[in-house]
């Protein structure tokens, strides 16, 4: 029971990474509420934006020079009260869609967003078709024609007749 609970807890846990040089990025200027939302936005964007120099690290955990520069830029922008979308646009305008770990929805990314759902639907449809066909095959027992029945009887009779062999 305990281990089940533990698994459930893990399922609902959210990853939160430490940010490289995190102590440099403090939000202390506004009231508590504002500071907290800004710190959260900063954390969220640092995890969601990809370091353009690295293959698979976000701004939060990369040591690359460019990641440091972009973290600072991100911090400045969040601090000055920019909206998340404006900051994302700023990054995409300079570094391209590559910097987004969560790609934006547009003509280029429809396949990415909807492909898996479409594949799932196709798979479910195939499954349903296959199951249906199998059922049909089981339900329909073909009647033997008179000729076939006669032959069957003959064969069965033959077996009985030859029992003693």
């Amino acid at each position: 029971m305990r281990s089940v609970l533990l698994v459930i807890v893990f399922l609902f846990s959210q990853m939160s990474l430490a940010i490289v040089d995190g102590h440099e990025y403090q939000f202390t200027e506004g009231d508590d509420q504002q500071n907290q939302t800004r710190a959260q936005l900063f954390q969220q964007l640092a995890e969601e934006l990809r370091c353009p120099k690295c293959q698979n690290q976000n701004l939060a955990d990369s040591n690359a020079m460019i990641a440091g520069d972009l973290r600072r830029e991100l911090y400045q922008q969040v601090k000055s009260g920019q909206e998340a979308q404006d900051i994302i646009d700023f990054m995409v305008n300079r570094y391209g869609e590559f910097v987004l770990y969560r790609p934006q929805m547009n003509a280029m990314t429809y396949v990415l967003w909807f492909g898996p759902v479409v594949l799932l639907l196709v798979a479910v449809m195939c499954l349903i078709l296959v199951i249906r066909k199998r059922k049909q095959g089981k339900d329909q027992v073909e009647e033997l024609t008179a000729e076939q029945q006669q032959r069957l009887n003959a064969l069965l009779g033959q077996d009985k007749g030859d029992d003693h062999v």
Partner: protein
Amino acid sequence: MKRWTLFIPFIIFTLLGLLLWRGLYLDPKDVPSALVDKPFPAFSLPTLLNGELKNEATLKGDVHLVNVWGTWCISCKVEHPFLVKLAQQGVRIVGVNYKDENDAARKWLNDLGNPYAYSVDDEEGTLSMDLGVTGAPETFFVDANGVIRYKHQGPITQGNWAPLEKIWLSLVNESKQAVQP
């Protein structure tokens, strides 16, 4: 069930195999620049050697290579002699000295030769950020209207110049044709 439907999994497997096989030969570092076909970003920076202020308008009227470099960058040292050679051949190169020590940069140009018409001092990296620079060296091909037409990441050398030269020449031709009529 028709016979050919049995081959569907095989066909899917083959197509998927082809797709992944192709993927093996793609360079994941080859990220298209977001700035191609966009105007060169606005800037106002002093030159490294005499402090004269330059801005994006200074780039208009001529085709340029804009080369982002720094003395801390090893690949820049690799490409430097070839840039000097290109400059001697009449290729107009403008430098962006990216987050560098001014004295070290001046010494570099003194010792190794200066291929740049001028280098602007991007100490804070602001212009480089607007250019979407992720490291040095990077080279932008800017046409006579001040529009970025191509971006090359990594050093330019004798070995990889041939295809780049085609781009350069096409931009030069374009600017000549624009002037004639």
